[in-house]
């Protein structure tokens, strides 16, 4: 996992199977080319796919297509290795970061000549920036072992090589130089002593890198920490002797997408396109568990518990980001009060309410909330990163607000922090006093923004989820999970009646009861059992809905309407004329206060404690169902074929 995180850029969504078809569609119909190119570039692409995007860009440019909203950047590449592989990968990757990149290539291994001659290809091209892609093989690093003076001399010479190139480029073209640190080779001469002994390659390169970093300070040039990148993936992975011998590749082509992404981040930062704010989901993202169901004692975010520590490490990273000027916001499907509880009362939570600039906890879809957050912060949605463990939420935001960066997260929360950091959304080339002040500016805010109109076509998105809902009466196999849900669910629970497994078994067998266990799957996987219903028959023609609960994970997906449709379906076949539902308020289930009203029931009673009773005549009931496939299992002699509900207008 950690390994492929960097090689495959696993924070990006997987490329779709029809990727090359989509590429072709872009050529055939270049309308809105820039935006669509950026969309394609935002997938997890290998070198070949990135090359395709580079070709498409060249074709489009020749045809005079408008590349808006991509911002143009002309980059010259000066290298002692083969730049031909780097350049198309850079062009494809830059689109991901909002840059329409054009590259100018100098001949192989002509760094100093190109920099110093005013008539060189590079200097004549008047680029916006120059990438000095120089690796250790370009520098005169050979040195007598053991001599401190001579080693210092060699370090000076190496630095002056780079300095000469920079000065020449500045004098001739007045461009920004992107200077790379040097990744040392994996091979050692003595062993660990290489770091101690003056003149050993590792000793020298370490000092060259320090010198390079210092030489950047106070200039407008930028450091690209290739040494750090190689360290992260491992030097033996980074350098491929075979590939160097074969084609003078300074590092293994497997890491081209990663390298290109790092170059593109820097270019994007130069053009002011870095992300500014981080929008956080709460349940199972910032802490383990569901605050509305598990309560303050039940959620995991404490030291001494491996799961809790995983979430704390993400919280620590988030706070560090805030300290460097990244604005924090929350988007959670919760009641506002419930969602704020851990921030206020959990003793080990690191993030507190005062760290959050905008706090959106409601039951709206997240795309809508994220738009509201952007508006409140006066930022474009393209400045936002959205972190959520739930693939359905991630995908909704990705589809409806493609400008928002939405990292894919691995299943293990211990890797959340690493994944978020690896994605490099907040790459920055300077750090200023303003950045420091920004955190203070949003102090003590945690502002809540009113509900907004929907951000996009949520129904169409739901239809694209390929949901399949399965209805089944209680049975022995499901009994354990049914009992667990009955005793655990707090939020989407109309009556919060708790039953033992023995009592559930009675409902399973007794013909006075009609029961439902409901499962939901979609193209992201199986959500398991997500809803439970128990109806008790009164008189001949009435069902009282004794229990109706649902997992909040599937909120906003039309499940409750489908469940009502299913109840009505069976009620009709058994001569039931009336459904009676009730809502019993607790301190956790405000969410479902209007459940029956939304489903078209009529209120018939209201008690002093806020309890309400509702009725629905089965003959006149009218349910708006969502597009999903319905499966029915084990409804005895009345067993019927599956039905399919298609999208409603």
């Amino acid at each position, binding site marked *: 996992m950690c390994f492929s995180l960097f090689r495959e850029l696993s924070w990006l969504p997987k490329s779709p199977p029809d990727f090359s078809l989509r590429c072709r569609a872009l050529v055939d119909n270049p309308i809105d080319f820039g935006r669509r190119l950026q969309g394609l570039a935002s997938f997890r692409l290998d*070198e070949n796919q990135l090359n395709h995007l580079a*070709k498409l860009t060249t074709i489009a440019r020749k045809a005079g297509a408008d590349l808006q909203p991509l911002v143009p950047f002309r980059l010259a590449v000066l290298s002692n290795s083969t730049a*031909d*592989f780097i350049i198309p990968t850079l062009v494809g990757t830059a689109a991901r970061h909002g840059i329409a990149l054009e590259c100018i290539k100098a001949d192989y291994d002509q760094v100093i000549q190109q920099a110093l001659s005013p008539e060189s290809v590079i200097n004549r091209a008047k680029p916006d920036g120059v990438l000095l892609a120089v690796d250790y093989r370009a520098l005169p690093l050979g040195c007598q072992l053991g001599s401190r003076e001579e080693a210092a001399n060699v370090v000076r010479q190496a630095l002056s090589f780079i300095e000469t190139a920079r000065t020449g480029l500045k004098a001739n073209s007045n461009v920004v130089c992107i200077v790379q640190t040097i990744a040392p080779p994996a091979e050692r001469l003595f062993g660990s002593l290489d770091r101690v002994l003056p003149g050993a390659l590792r000793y020298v390169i370490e000092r060259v890198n320090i010198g390079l970093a210092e030489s950047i300070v106070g200039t407008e040039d930028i450091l690209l920490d290739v040494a750090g990148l190689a360290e992260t993936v491992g030097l033996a992975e980074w350098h491929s002797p075979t590939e160097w011998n*074969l084609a003078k590749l300074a590092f293994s*082509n497997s890491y081209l997408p990663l390298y290109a992404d790092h170059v593109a981040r820097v270019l994007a930062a130069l053009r002011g396109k870095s992300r500014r704010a981080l929008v956080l989901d709460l349940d199972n993202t910032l802490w383990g568990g569901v605050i509305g169901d598990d309560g303050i004692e039940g959620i995991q975010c404490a030291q001494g518990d491996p799961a809790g520590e995983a979430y704390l490490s993400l919280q620590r990273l988030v706070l560090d980001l805030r300290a460097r000027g990244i604005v924090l916001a929350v988007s959670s499907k919760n009641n506002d009060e419930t969602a704020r509880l851990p921030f206020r009362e959990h003793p080990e939570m690191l993030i507190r309410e005062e760290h959050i600039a905008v706090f959106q906890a409601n039951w709206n879809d997240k795309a809508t909330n994220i738009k509201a957050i952007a508006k409140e912060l006066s930022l474009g949605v393209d400045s936002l990163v959205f972190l959520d463990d739930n693939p359905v939420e991630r995908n909704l935001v990705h589809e409806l607000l493609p400008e928002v960066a939405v990292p894919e997260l691995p299943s293990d929360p211990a890797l959340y922090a690493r994944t978020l950091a690896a994605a490099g959304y907040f790459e920055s080339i300077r750090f200023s006093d303003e950045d420091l002040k920004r955190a203070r500016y949003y102090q003590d805010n945690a502002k809540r923004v009113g509900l907004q109109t929907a951000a996009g076509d949520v129904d169409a998105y739901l239809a694209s989820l390929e949901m399949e809902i399965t209805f089944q009466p209680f049975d022995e196999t499901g009994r354990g999970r049914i009992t667990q849900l009955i005793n655990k669910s707090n939020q989407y629970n109309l009556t919060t009646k708790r039953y033992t497994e023995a009592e559930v078994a009675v409902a399973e067998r007794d013909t006075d009861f009609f029961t439902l266990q409901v499962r939901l799957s979609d193209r992201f996987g199986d959500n398991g059992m997500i809803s439970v219903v128990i109806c008790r028959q009164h008189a001949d023609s009435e069902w009282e809905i004794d229990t109706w609960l649902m997992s909040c994970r599937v909120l906003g997906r039309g499940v409750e309407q489908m469940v009502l449709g299913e109840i009505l379906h069976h009620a009709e076949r058994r001569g039931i004329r009336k459904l009676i539902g009730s809502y019993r308020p607790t301190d956790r289930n405000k969410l479902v206060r209007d459940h029956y009203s939304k489903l078209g029931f009529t209120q018939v009673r209201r008690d002093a404690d806020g309890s309400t009773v509702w009725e629905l005549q089965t003959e006149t009931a009218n349910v708006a169902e969502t597009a999903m496939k319905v499966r029915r299992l084990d409804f005895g002699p009345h067993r019927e074929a599956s039905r399919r509900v298609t999208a409603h207008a």
Partner: protein
Amino acid sequence: METAEIYQEFTKIFHDVFNDDSIVVRPDLAANDVEGWDSLSHIRLVLTVERSFGVKFSASEISKLKSVAGLVDLVRSKQSDS
């Protein structure tokens, strides 16, 4: 892996590397038959084959390659090594 399966995988690789879904991969397919098959894309092709089959070739093995059939044989010999 059977030769037929290798050719199937090769077809996908050729389509990816040369950005052309119409290429039919045959044993005697050569650089002249495919638009854009130059020395650079040849390296890309070989490295993509390495990644996709999880094998590694030496520089001399790569420089000796003359045809698709040779590359398929090389993949097979590496797979039987492991």
